[in-house]
């Protein structure tokens, strides 16, 4: 085992104070800033209007009936089934009954879909803009610096990761360039943020609180954009119609109770 004497490079300690340290601090600060900017930009999901709620909840009603049909007597079940199947087929719960035979609307033109996309755009912009700016800043000022040495050996594979911006073939992989330090910070600071920003979800926490304060206004969409509620209602009506088997849970309950209690 030939003992390789590590490459010795003399580094100016100023490199530490003026490059390594600033990059790290800037990365952390941008992370915090991005967090709060995201919070500010986040728009609360728009509550559904009455008709949309009615459309969704009545659909759920059918699913509930199908799932728990055995809990109620056969006659009660049949009454409900007949009512729901008729209503579903007539489309009386639809948001706009006239749109029944029209093709499904283009998801791009759906205002709700646009809202979602806008939110996604905002989130992406919050990621991309600061990253490009900082990377430009590092490239402009610090490209080509070797700023630190890792305390452990690495295989050659890591060379491209740790020494981007420094084009030397023979340098030991343990040396890290400034640009690579930026990348390491970018991916490795998550736990630091969790530490600083309180579990990284002080944003989520406020949202959860607001939700707790009004649990009734559920804004989640049962029908995704592009799905046609009319078709789903028809399918559900068919599901209900073909349900012929009905075993009432109370049948034979006296024997079950006598056997177990």
């Amino acid at each position: 085992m030939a003992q390789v004497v590590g490459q010795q490079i003399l580094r100016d300690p100023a490199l530490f104070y003026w490059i390594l340290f600033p990059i790290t601090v800037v990365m952390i600060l941008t992370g915090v800033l991005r967090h709060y900017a995201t919070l500010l930009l986040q728009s609360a999901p728009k509550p559904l209007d009455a008709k949309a709620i009615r459309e969704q909840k009545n659909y759920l009603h059918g699913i509930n009936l199908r799932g728990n049909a055995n809990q109620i007597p056969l006659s009660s079940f049949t009454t409900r089934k007949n009512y729901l199947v008729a209503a579903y087929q007539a489309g009386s719960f639809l948001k706009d009954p006239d749109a029944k035979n029209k093709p499904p609307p283009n998801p791009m033109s759906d205002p709700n879909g646009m809202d979602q996309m806008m939110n996604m755009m905002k989130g992406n912009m919050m990621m991309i803009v600061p990253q490009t700016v900082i990377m430009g800043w590092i490239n402009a000022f610090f490209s080509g610096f070797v700023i630190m040495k890792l305390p452990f050996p690495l295989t050659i594979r890591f060379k491209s990761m740790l020494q981007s911006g420094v084009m030397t073939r023979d340098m030991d992989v343990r040396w890290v360039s400034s640009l690579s330090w930026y990348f390491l910070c970018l991916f490795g600071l998550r736990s630091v943020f969790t530490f600083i920003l309180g579990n990284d979800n002080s944003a989520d926490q406020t949202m959860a609180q607001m939700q707790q304060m009004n649990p009734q206004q559920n804004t989640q969409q049962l029908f995704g954009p592009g799905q046609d509620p009319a078709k789903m209602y028809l399918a559900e009506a068919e599901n209900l119609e073909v349900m012929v088997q009905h075993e009432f849970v109370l049948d034979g309950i006296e024997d079950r109770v006598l056997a177990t209690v």
Partner: protein
Amino acid sequence: MSLTSYLSRFVAASTHPSPAESLSLSQLAPSILNLTISDTPEQWSLYESLLLSALRTGDDTSARLVLQRLSDRFGNSNARIMALQGMYDEAIATNHAQLEQVLKNYDDVIKDDPTNVPIAKRRITLLHHLNKKPEAIAALTALLDLNPTDAEAWAQLAQYYFEIAMYSQAIYCLEEVLLILPNAYNVHARLGEINYIVADSGGGGGKESILERLEASLRWYLRSVELCDGYLRGYYGIKMVTAKLMQTKASGQRTIAEEKVNKLNSVATVHLNDIVSGHEKGKKEFVGYDSVEVAAAKELLAADDSST
């Protein structure tokens, strides 16, 4: 005391506490209000319960303060805050005209935003309180048309129908609750009770119908016991219905054989005896039962003893 211990005291009390309980909860108000505001979900739910108990006991100044803090945090347009505000207005109203004014406010809010469920529920409650029962039922059915998966609303509608003796409608509503929460054993017991009451009040014609009702009632009670081991209300019902069934010398077709009814009766008696004697001796396994319910069970057992 810390926030969590306050909170668990409030959680332990139901929404319908006894007056003494309300009083002791309400007396916590100054010390809770002196805690630093920590902006955690627990803190705000504690405030909410505190508001209710302050209103219950007529401590309107504390209620005002708590409500103020809640609306400062969540804003006046939050549906839940609006409902709490409405409840405060209802509570401090001194005459009929003021209540009508509150009702009118509710109407305006609902007109603006028909999806404001908390306010809709307040409005229904107030309508019912003002003895406008048909209006309350109509409003509740409208709410259920909007959202037929709200178990609480169905249960409330069942109660309203029950109060005006429209039993089959009440049963329908409770069945809807079961479609949403199939394991709600207290709803099963409630169905048993309503069926029993229907049978007791004549069953809507025919001896056979009464028998059917009684058997249905027994089955619902049995299901509640099957879902919840040692459910006092369920056993009480079983005992009551089986006693009635044994008395009834109906000629109609029985679907539950008489010997099974006898057996079920003795099973229920054994369980009730266990619970009553255990509760009286203060055994650990039985202390949690409601004293009033245990006393009722004891009475039932005593009546049964004297009749045989």
